[in-house]
């Protein structure tokens, strides 16, 4: 019966679309890694830098508009336009930023293209390594004679806590 075949095809198509849709939703709901460490050392100097200043610095570095959005628990989103030839989609890079011991670590956990969320492990290594560089750049900006003892993100920006170790 050809009719039953077509019915099966329609049912299969529907199931396939439903699976794709559910996978897309499940990818969006995947939890982000969090590097929350309560600072145990009292800082000597606390520096707050606003999202506005960091977005401007990022735009200058990338030489195109970029927006950095911070959320609590070390969550950070970098929004910029990617040049993929015919299309230039606006892409959100979702990163986690925090302290592991005395080191600043940054990890890309997903990239959002429109409503589509792509996990970092599906992306090229170069992109993940590039994201890890953010932590190293922050670390390298720490003034001499100071060590970073805390990093707190908030919707307004990021706060660095420094301890003086100079003589």
């Amino acid at each position, binding site marked *: 019966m050809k009719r039953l075949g077509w019915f*099966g095809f329609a049912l299969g198509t529907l199931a396939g679309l439903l699976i794709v849709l559910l996978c897309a939703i499940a990818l969006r709901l995947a939890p982000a890694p969090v590097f929350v460490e309560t600072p145990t050392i*009292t800082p000597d100097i606390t520096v707050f830098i606003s999202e506005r200043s960091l977005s401007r610095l990022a735009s200058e570095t990338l030489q195109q508009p970029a927006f950095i959005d911070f959320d609590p628990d070390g969550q950070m989103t970098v929004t910029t336009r990617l040049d993929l030839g015919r299309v230039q989609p606006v892409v959100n890079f979702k990163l986690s930023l925090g302290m592991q011991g005395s080191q600043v670590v940054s990890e890309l956990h997903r990239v959002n293209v429109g409503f589509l969320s792509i996990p970092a492990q599906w992306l090229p290594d170069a992109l993940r390594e590039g994201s890890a560089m953010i932590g190293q750049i922050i670390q390298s900006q720490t003034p001499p004679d100071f060590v970073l003892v805390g990093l707190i993100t908030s919707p307004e920006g990021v706060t660095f806590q420094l301890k003086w170790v100079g003589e």
Partner: protein
Amino acid sequence: MPHQYDFNRDPVGCGLLGCLGGLFFGLTGGATILVIAALLSAGAASVPAPNSAISSQPDLSLTIEESFLNRYAEQPTAGAIAIDVLPNNQVQLIANTNLQSFGIETPVQITGLFQIQLTPQTLFVELVDTRISGIPLPPELSNFFSQDITFINQDLDGLVAELSRVLKIPIVLNNLRTTNSQIQVELREVQ
């Protein structure tokens, strides 16, 4: 003559085959549609501009702890100096030293009260009052801290220049607050 499958003889198999084909079609087609739709929606989107409407929020703020200033200023060879941060943008410097008069060394405590001043370009300190063991000194004799004031003001100038260099933009100082244990400076970028 090639064998032809008779769909009428196995309707369940035919339905399953159709279902499998449909599933494959739905998965590949759905994924393709999803990627194209996502790219189109992302292409039409714009990069949000940083919110410059929040005028009360500083671009940069710096909080310095009193305990740090005390450790930083500690100079064992020159005697003990204690820094006491006070509210209303004031700082008190207490130096314990010995004064020699008529061949007798007398321990004295010299206290200098400073007002931290803020201009858009820099921070600087001004001596408000000097006392030796609680007795106020006339202004013409209160040059005990003049060298310290020069060094402190040079350090503060350097600090503002360093912040401007890191942010790669001229900045202005727009607020200063002190508590009993902290000095907080707020800065804004020059647009």
